[in-house]
């Protein structure tokens, strides 16, 4: 097989519940600063949730915001910020060679629920159903709004991959760049899930919705007393380029995509399968031409459900049995579960470790679950590794979709 082009990350734009830039996000991760609010969920009352406070009007007219969707605004903000961060001269970019590939867990629930509520105020007469419903709920909405806002005429679509979607967006972009379908990709994951009560009710009735008197402590992966997921919104979108193109323009190379894998459990709709997760990790390592001990940081997917965390730990114990240098962390403990954005945001939170050599911890662990006590788990306090060269990012989702993405510091063999 011919050697495929190397793909690099050259820009990051994000909004997380605890930060609207990578610098702010990272500072809060190193400071152990969670930011979870308590919001009023339609029909359900107060629940903890991760809420983003970026300024949508920075990149959108108020009419765009009104006519579009929340996830569209998140996507536009992150895309625009990524381009700024990349140092690309956007005016000179051939927009027909730009692709937009955004991972989503779900889409359309928010708008559909809003309209069902709206027409309920009019005796359920559908003549009051908004004509904006279809453009707002088509599955490509998030990526399509980006193209309209930024004048991008290359391909755009979303990748529906449940909570494995953030990695899936990046993987899709890397593949399209390698196939020379585009010259620049805007890729990552996004979510507006806190605005749909259906997701909250679904998790609650599944026994998987977090609760805590202190919202900031509600998301507690690996803790013995964890009681479920804190649902959050957010987004992380990257500029990806072929290495040669990035070098030619003198870009700041943040990381190189080293390897990946997406596979399927084919066993259960909600209970993860550690055998398939381990297999996914191994295949990603194989593609990256790495052995387990080459991984310096494992960014876990763990969502703080009772079984999901244990299953992931079983998978990691299997693959990383003898890797004393490898550190393991979790970012959902700060920001909750950003659904389609989770994998992309959690990767972003770890990327600065290539510069500072520090691993941010998983927080809110007061009583470590023995079944989650995996070697290398960084708990409650950051750990300095001196140097960090590789990050393995886990992101898993319902219907048994697993995604693993490995990135490395540019210049590492």
């Amino acid at each position: 097989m011919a050697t495929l082009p190397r793909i690099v990350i050259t820009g990051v734009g994000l909004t997380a519940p605890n930060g609207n830039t990578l610098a702010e996000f990272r500072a809060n991760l190193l400071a152990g600063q969670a930011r979870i609010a308590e919001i009023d969920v339609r029909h359900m009352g107060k629940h903890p949730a991760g809420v983003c406070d970026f300024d949508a009007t920075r990149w959108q007219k108020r009419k765009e915001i009104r006519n579009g969707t929340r996830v569209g605004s998140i996507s536009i903000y992150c895309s625009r910020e990524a381009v700024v961060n990349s140092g690309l001269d956007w005016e000179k970019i051939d927009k027909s060679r730009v692709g937009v590939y955004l991972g989503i867990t779900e889409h359309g629930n928010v708008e559909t629920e809003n309209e069902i509520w709206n027409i309920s105020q009019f005796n359920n007469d559908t003549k009051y159903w908004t004509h904006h419903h279809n453009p707002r709920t088509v599955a490509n909405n998030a990526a399509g709004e980006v193209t309209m806002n930024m004048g991008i005429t290359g391909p755009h679509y979303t990748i529906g991959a449940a909570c494995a979607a953030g990695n899936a967006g990046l993987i899709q972009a890397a593949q399209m760049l390698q196939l020379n379908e585009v010259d620049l990709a805007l890729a990552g994951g996004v979510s507006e899930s806190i605005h749909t009560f259906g997701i909250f009710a679904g998790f609650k009735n599944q026994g998987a919705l977090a609760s805590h008197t202190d919202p900031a402590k509600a998301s507690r992966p690996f803790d013995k007393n964890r009681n479920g997921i804190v649902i959050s919104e957010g987004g992380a979108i990257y500029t990806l380029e072929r290495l040669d193109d990035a070098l030619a323009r003198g870009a700041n190379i943040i990381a190189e995509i080293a390897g990946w894998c997406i596979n399927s459990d084919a066993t259960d709709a909600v209970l993860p399968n550690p055998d398939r997760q381990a297999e996914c990790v191994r295949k990603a390592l194989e593609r990256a031409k790495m052995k387990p001990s080459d991984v310096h940081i494992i960014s876990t997917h763990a969502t703080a459900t009772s079984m999901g965390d244990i299953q992931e730990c079983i998978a990691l114990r299997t693959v990383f049995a003898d890797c004393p240098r490898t550190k393991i962390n979790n970012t959902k403990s700060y920001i909750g579960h950003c659904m389609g954005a989770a994998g992309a945001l959690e990767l972003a939170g770890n990327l600065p470790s290539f510069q500072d050599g520090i691993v941010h911890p998983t927080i809110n662990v007061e009583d470590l679950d023995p079944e989650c006590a995996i070697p290398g788990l960084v708990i409650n306090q950051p750990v300095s590794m001196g140097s960090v060269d590789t990050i393995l990012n886990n992101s898993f989702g319902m219907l048994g979709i697993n995604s693993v993405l490995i990135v490395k510091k540019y210049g590492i063999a």
Partner: protein
Amino acid sequence: MNKDDVKSIVLDIIRDIAPDEDLSALKHEVRLRDQLTLDSMDFLDIVMELRKQHGIEVPEIDYPQLASLESCGEYLLPKFKAKGK
């Protein structure tokens, strides 16, 4: 209720659906689309808000009657009066 009241109602709706627009110098006789950035979806918003807020129905065949603020006033006034307003 008179024509100016109707125009004021339409202006309030436009203010909501086109919040970036400066409506202070809007010429009443000139087509709205020639003065503002309004597309077909925006006109459907005007129709929807007349329906939701005031119970006024505008059949599709009459959409051209909403072209300018003046024509809105002339066309909609009898409808508002029929509603007892």
